[in-house]
């Protein structure tokens, strides 16, 4: 059992939760994730370790409530428990001094790429972080990100804050301005990672993406997390989650992520029904 120590709402449907997990906190490196199961009938889901405090023995996760398990997780408050947290899993980010690094985080991806950005910044890189969201109210972690990069740029799709447009447009401007970019890291929705990779490829700028395939065990035992990279099937959990963005078959990844769409909808409806029943009971 793993104790929830704090919970905070960052934006609509996005929460940040701090969990007591001393062994993971001590071991984790940038780019790694945990497998988490809230309760006994629960499903195992992968969540990135957004931050950790080895002294306090805590890890921080940031998640978006998209379906049954993340919604359930969203109901946990400080003092509640999570049944299983296994990790740190996946390869850590390859960190070295590359020179100038552009780190792109879209939506929730800002939180997922946070540790990567921080590690690259601490390794002495000049890190330009481009963070983006659909609109201002959905933009998360702006203040935190400022502390772990050299320059911060903000974009919103609707122009309600920062640059009006997509983060890829900001990246294009950077490239056009003639700045030498040694590495691009993109974390976020699959279409964003695909778009960034497509943009950087003709310039030959090395691009790393952190993939989010469906996972079950995340120990290399099932192959649910198969992704095609450079024409070869790789297991995302033990060989990733980070891959060369120019080699990834994003179309396949998008399709595979929809495998359980129907059943997920059913589960979601079940969750909402159960919650509204509980709320009714509390009212009574």
């Amino acid at each position, binding site marked *: 059992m793993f104790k929830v120590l704090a919970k905070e709402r960052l934006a609509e449907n996005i929460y940040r939760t701090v969990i007591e997990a001393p062994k993971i906190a001590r071991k984790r490196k940038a780019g790694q994730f945990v497998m988490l199961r809230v309760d006994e009938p629960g499903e195992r889901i992968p969540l990135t370790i957004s931050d950790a405090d080895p002294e306090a023995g805590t890890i921080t996760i940031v998640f978006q409530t998209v379906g049954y398990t993340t919604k359930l997780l969203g109901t946990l408050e400080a003092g509640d428990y999570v049944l299983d947290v296994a990790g740190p899993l996946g390869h850590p980010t390859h960190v070295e001094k590359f020179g100038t690094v552009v780190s792109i985080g879209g939506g929730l991806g800002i939180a997922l790429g946070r540790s990567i950005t921080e590690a690259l910044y601490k390794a002495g890189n000049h890190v330009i972080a481009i963070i983006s969201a659909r609109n201002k109210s959905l933009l998360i972690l702006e203040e935190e990100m400022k502390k772990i990069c050299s320059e911060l740029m903000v974009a919103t799709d609707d122009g309600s804050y920062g640059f009006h447009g997509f983060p890829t447009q900001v990246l294009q401007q950077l490239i056009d301005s003639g700045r030498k970019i040694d590495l691009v890291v993109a974390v976020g929705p699959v279409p964003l990672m695909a778009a960034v990779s497509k943009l950087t490829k003709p310039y030959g700028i090395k691009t790393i993406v952190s993939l989010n395939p469906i996972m079950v065990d995340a120990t290399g035992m*099932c192959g649910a997390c198969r992704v095609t990279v450079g024409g070869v099937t790789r297991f995302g959990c033990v060989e990733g989650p980070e891959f060369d963005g120019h080699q990834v078959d994003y179309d396949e990844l998008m399709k595979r992520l929809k495998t359980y769409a129907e059943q997920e909808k059913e589960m979601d409806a079940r969750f909402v029904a159960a919650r509204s029943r509980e709320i009714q009971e509390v009212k009574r």
Partner: protein
Amino acid sequence: MTDSPTCPEAHDLKAAKKIPRQKMPEREPRQRMKHFDEVPMGYTPELAQKEAKRCLQCKKPLCRIGCPVEIDIPAFIKCIVEGDFVGSARNLKEYNALPAVCGRVCPQEDQCEKVCILTKKGISVAIGNLERFAADYERNKGTITLPKIPAPTGYRVAVVGSGPAGLTAAGELVKMGHEVVVFEALHKPGGVLVYGIPEFRLPKAIVEAEIDYLKKLGVKIEVDAAIGKVATIDELLSNGFDAVFVATGAGLPLFMGIPGENLCGVYSANEYLTRVNLMKAYNSHYVTPVLRKRRIAVVGGGNVAMDAARTALRMGTEEVYIVYRRSRSEMPARIDEIHHGEEEGLKFMLLTNPIRVLGDEKGWVKGLECIKMELGEPDSSGRRRPVPVQGSEFILDVDCVIMAIGTSPHPLVPMTTPGLKVTPKGNIMANEETGQSSKEGVFAGGDIVTGAATVILAMGAGKKAAQAIDQYVRNKVRVS
């Protein structure tokens, strides 16, 4: 004759031969398809005693040679004849920590029962069924007693992986007075016994009971602990463990490398079985999803293929095909399982090999292109090599494909342990008798060493390694 019975009055050959082998009652195929209850229901005491009486109580029992852990088979059977069922179970446990499991899943027809003297004369004693009976009897009666544990030795041993090899080693080591911690990457201990072998063949309550027993003996089990990640083998050794036993299994599933294998609806058997067994997708109370398709092809001919196929039938699949490239006589699955599968309606597409998975525009499986095979010259395994028949391609109308063509060694520990020698296939190299690896203080056994094998062989390796580890830690000069 070497097989002269010890007590000819009770067990004379002629009388024994008159008793037919007692069949274990089974659930009807049509009835059992609706749920995941165990198919064979176990002997009643009467049936067990009748079967036990068939054993000739050989002075030099051949059956023991066939058993990888050399259970004293005539002795435990004799107890059953005498009505001392609990005594029988205790006798079994001196050799085998998991008799209720082995009685169910051992390939007895290739081991103890194959060499039982009665096999030559007709049909062997049902050793596995009897083993299961005695173990179940003891468990159900709740008469399990704990052995006396010697005073603590002060030595600490880490066991990595909680499958049959790890659990057996842990049990042996704790009984020698050592402190044992088992690390398991998943949230539940048991290895393949919990994530792979389905409920209808091995009820999970039995595995849980065996693990509870180990915990009562003092074995500590840490789940959610992937070694190589949360701690490396070297870190275990430098943080207070005197030795490590690596029993991480051969869990990495293989795929064929044919086009279309990453379409939605193509599973490895491990994924399909894990979703249904470990994550209990068959139970509507649980939330892990699994695809429920109408027509499924399972590729492969071993136990794993049979388990996936029979699971698929129970999940309500209309047609389940076994696609296997050789003929029936080469199928590595247990005869009982093939037979059960047949009764339940599996369709066998033998001498057939998949060459491509066909998909629709949304990325879903819509068929499996196969080619007919014929048997040519024998290959290195001594089996006749299947060769494709030119122009015999055809499309099997399925909407889901499960690949059950084998697994390779679990990579996490080899990847993260410098100095640990592995074979080109990734199996840890270890001494067959002791489990000693190329690295001081590190022992290994079970599927991670041998490649996918059997429960009883993994247990045998765990037992031998426990002996060697005991010697090793006692002889080790402690620097403190």
